[in-house]
């Protein structure tokens, strides 16, 4: 252990502000990138759901127009 007390650890020999600021910002950036990936997945889920709904609407319309035998091919 390089520090005698927790107080000293926080102060970092007078450089506490710089050390903790850089660690905090680093954490923020990494968390941001990870969060962006998670949000991206959510967005994809939404897009996929919209795509599905549109496809279902289309197939329903087709069902009404053509015979059900045609539909089962899909």
């Amino acid at each position, binding site marked *: *252990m*390089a*520090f005698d007390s927790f107080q000293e*650890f926080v102060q*970092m*020999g*007078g*450089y*506490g502000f*710089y*050390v903790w*600021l*850089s*660690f905090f*910002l*680093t954490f923020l*950036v*990494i968390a*941001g*990138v*990870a969060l*962006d*990936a*998670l949000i*991206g*997945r959510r967005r*994809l*889920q939404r*897009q*996929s*759901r919209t*795509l*599905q709904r549109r*496809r*279902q609407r289309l197939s329903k319309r087709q069902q009404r127009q053509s015979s059900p035998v045609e539909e089962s091919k899909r």
Partner: protein
Amino acid sequence: MWRWLHPYAKPEATYRLVDKLLPWFAALTAVSLLVGMVWGLAFAPSDYQQGDSYRIIYIHVPSAIFSMGAYFGMAVMGVIALVWQIKTAEWSIPAIAPVGAAMTAIALFTGAIWGKPMWGTWWVWDARLTSELILLFLYVGVMALYYAFDDQRTGAKAAAILAIVGVVNLPIIHYSVEWWNTLHQGATITKFERPSIATSMLWPLLISLLGFMLLTISLVMMRFKNELLRHELHRPWAQRVLGTAEESH
């Protein structure tokens, strides 16, 4: 039927592989980063010249190294995409670039914050910081080029070519320390036989390096999974993975 399906089997297999590996990488990232950071922040001795401010090294150096490592990886993917026309390699470029840019940004502002107590100003036009800034511009250029085209494949190829061209800049970045002898201290661990850093400080640094490498890979994997899904959104496997598959009726 099979001939039609075959080319599409590949992204799915890639996705399954990445999906299986990601938890392991994430766990290893967490462990190594935790060990590296706690060791570096609390247990490594303080530097006789720089005091405790040197502890920024445990994020500054790893992020700087893997900002370049990510760029190199992106260029390798670019070569694969251009030579063998593999689509998954093309899709990896938009997965790698933002992560690499984030690493570059971390290296930049930790360098600046470290510079404040050491040099007295936030920003010094020193060789390595400047090179990191150029690297950030390169990342921005690759991303802007990728998204500039209506056709994603053309955009990916253009970005791949630019990434390869930019790799020529990486040696310049690496040797810039020798070329422009400025305020920045010399490279710390280029020579493993006689490192200019004490062993008690070196070990946590090596662990942090491992942690940042795994972190970069994990973040790229997360984004890469999304890219795979994005391009295969109309395929049943992607819908199954996303849990939006058509209910059987």
